[in-house]
């Protein structure tokens, strides 16, 4: 609590005593200091991460594509800069993993779908251009639910990713690969995308920090579209400081995305203030129902008490339309998806059926053979909801419900600065446990979809563990473009606790738990 944010910041750096040779365990901001001081090189760091990948990736299976040669070339370029004494950006030489839904020029981008198995983008997403300006090292592309549709990463056409905390459980989804690789120290940080919770929920389940910025904060150019009015790119990191650094790198309006908003982008590291005195935190009673796992409720209440103990004011609030968020989401997102995925017709890129009778047959066979079951299910729901005779009853109705959900938040932020909730109603569940029942799987998103409808910034930070050792996430939500307040509360919480420093069993012994 004493001193300003910078002295706190320095304290962390100097007390971090992880041994050399375990560089992959460190945060980007600590590594940046070591790179700048030339204690280590970016090539050593990158080699260290790939050694870790060789050891644990066969068990975690977080990556779909590894780009080691490219990564070492990027690392070497960063090293040249550091050796020349150039003023290097905060993320120069930092190894990062990218969700395979973000277009990477010259590097296969599959969306974990068979339909894009051979797709090599001719351009970089805007976030990639921005990261390359920083001089990052791209490790590879991470596994996900096909086209980001899912909450467990089990909908990948290629492989199942395992949660590093318990290899029998899922890492969450849809950005499960990006969460798992940061948790397993097979990446320093990563990017994911969040439509209904696809960054926050896997971050919670894998015990890392994950943030969805305000809708419009980050350009979606080059993010393969799922539900365009909800999709947003954001970071996974090992602490809140790294989260701020990644936000600094990727935020900003972009002429290539008309939905990116032209608002001032602050230096988010200025929000890393270990002080919440005077801030009001709202606790929505609708999130603490019987459906919430009792241990999760306990850990989240404890976390809120921690924030209260350092000066935050806590008050109960009501978001009365919370219970309609999932129903609303499973109309709006599939409706937008059904339109967005119409482009996969076997003509311009990706898979095509080899022996169609005619053009229509080619469309149908191509799509039916190469889309997975969940993608087909969402396309069917969305097409139905937009079809003649049903559009008013479903799509229009859902858009109106969305207004009510958004109004709840507008009213709440008149009274409080930040809203705190659990990120997920349960800890990571067993692989296969919910695949038979799509509706059960959809309900995994009950804590995250409301904020998505309102386009709010939201972070999940580690806030403890349930008795069997699985991590629990605390979700902090802010008003549109109030990332700074969210980061300040998250940072303060992190300074009072050491949950984010815990490593999964797969990490401590170098082997499998």
């Amino acid at each position, binding site marked *: 609590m004493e001193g300003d944010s910078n002295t706190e910041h320095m304290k962390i750096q100097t007390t971090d005593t992880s041994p050399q040779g375990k560089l992959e365990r460190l945060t980007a901001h600590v590594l940046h200091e070591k790179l700048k001081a030339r204690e280590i090189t970016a090539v050593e760091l990158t080699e260290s991460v790939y050694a870790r990948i060789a050891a644990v990736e066969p068990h975690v299976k977080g990556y779909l594509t590894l780009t080691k040669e490219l990564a070492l070339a990027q690392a070497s370029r960063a090293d040249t800069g550091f050796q020349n004494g150039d003023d290097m950006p905060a993320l120069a030489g930092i190894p990062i993993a990218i969700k395979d839904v973000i277009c990477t020029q010259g590097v296969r981008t599959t969306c974990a779908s068979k339909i894009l198995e051979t797709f090599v983008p001719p351009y970089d997403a805007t976030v990639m251009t921005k990261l390359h300006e920083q001089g990052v090292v791209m490790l590879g592309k991470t596994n996900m639910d096909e086209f980001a549709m899912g909450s467990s990463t089990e909908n990948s056409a290629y492989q199942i990713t395992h949660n590093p905390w318990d290899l029998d459980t899922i890492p969450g989804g849809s950005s499960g690969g990006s969460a798992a690789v940061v948790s397993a120290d097979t990446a320093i940080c990563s990017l994911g995308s969040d439509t209904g919770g696809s960054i926050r929920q896997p971050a919670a389940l894998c015990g890392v920090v994950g943030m969805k910025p305000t809708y419009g904060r980050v350009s979606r150019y080059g993010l393969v579209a799922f539900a365009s009015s909800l999709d947003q790119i954001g970071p996974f990191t090992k602490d809140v400081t790294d989260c701020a650094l990644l936000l600094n790198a990727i935020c900003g309006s972009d002429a290539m995305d008309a*939905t990116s908003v032209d608002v001032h982008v602050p230096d988010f590291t200025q929000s890393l203030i270990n002080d919440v005195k005077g801030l009001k935190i709202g606790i929505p009673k609708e999130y603490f129902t019987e459906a919430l796992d009792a241990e999760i409720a306990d850990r989240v209440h404890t976390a809120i008490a921690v924030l209260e103990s350092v000066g935050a004011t806590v008050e109960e609030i009501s978001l009365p339309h919370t219970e309609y968020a999932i129903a609303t989401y499973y109309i709006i997102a599939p409706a937008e998806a059904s339109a967005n995925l119409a482009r996969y017709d076997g003509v*311009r890129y990706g898979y095509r059926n080899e022996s169609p009778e005619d053009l229509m047959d080619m469309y149908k066979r191509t799509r039916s053979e190469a889309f997975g079951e969940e993608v087909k299910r969402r396309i069917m729901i969305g097409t139905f909801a937009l079809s003649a005779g049903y559009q008013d009853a479903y799509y229009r109705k859902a858009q109106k419900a969305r207004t009510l959900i958004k109004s709840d938040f507008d009213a709440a932020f008149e009274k409080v600065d930040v809203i705190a909730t659990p990120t997920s109603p349960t800890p990571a569940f067993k692989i296969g446990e919910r695949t038979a029942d799509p509706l059960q799987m959809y309900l995994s998103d009950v804590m995250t979809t409301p904020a998505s409808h309102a386009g709010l910034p939201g972070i999940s930070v580690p806030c403890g563990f349930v008795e069997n050792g699985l991590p629990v996430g605390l979700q902090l939500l802010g008003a549109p473009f109030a990332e700074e307040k969210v980061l300040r509360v998250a940072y303060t919480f992190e300074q009072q606790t050491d949950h984010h420093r815990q490593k999964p069993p797969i990490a401590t012994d170098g082997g499998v738990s």
Partner: protein
Amino acid sequence: MATITVEGIRHVANLARLEFNEEETEHFTEQLARILDYIGKLNELETDHVPPTSHIHPHQVFIMGSEAEASHVAKPDVVKPSYPREEVLANAPEAEEGYFGVPRVVDRSH
């Protein structure tokens, strides 16, 4: 709200350019019925006087139709090079003479 039938599923599948065998059709009919039943929860809400939200920053975004007050965001109309044709066609399952190739859609005998 509607109940979904096997015929309804076949119609929607055709609209979506998907095809299913008998078993899949029944499977989807049953699953979509359950999902739509759950979504029927929205009928509890009185929304007659609630405007729809298609986007959270309506002032910012180019929107056709009802939100006439929305200001349009337009880029300057500047000619710029597009991606090289060969690079774009490199991803195509079939390309010929600088064009995408598709199964024949016009019968030459007419």
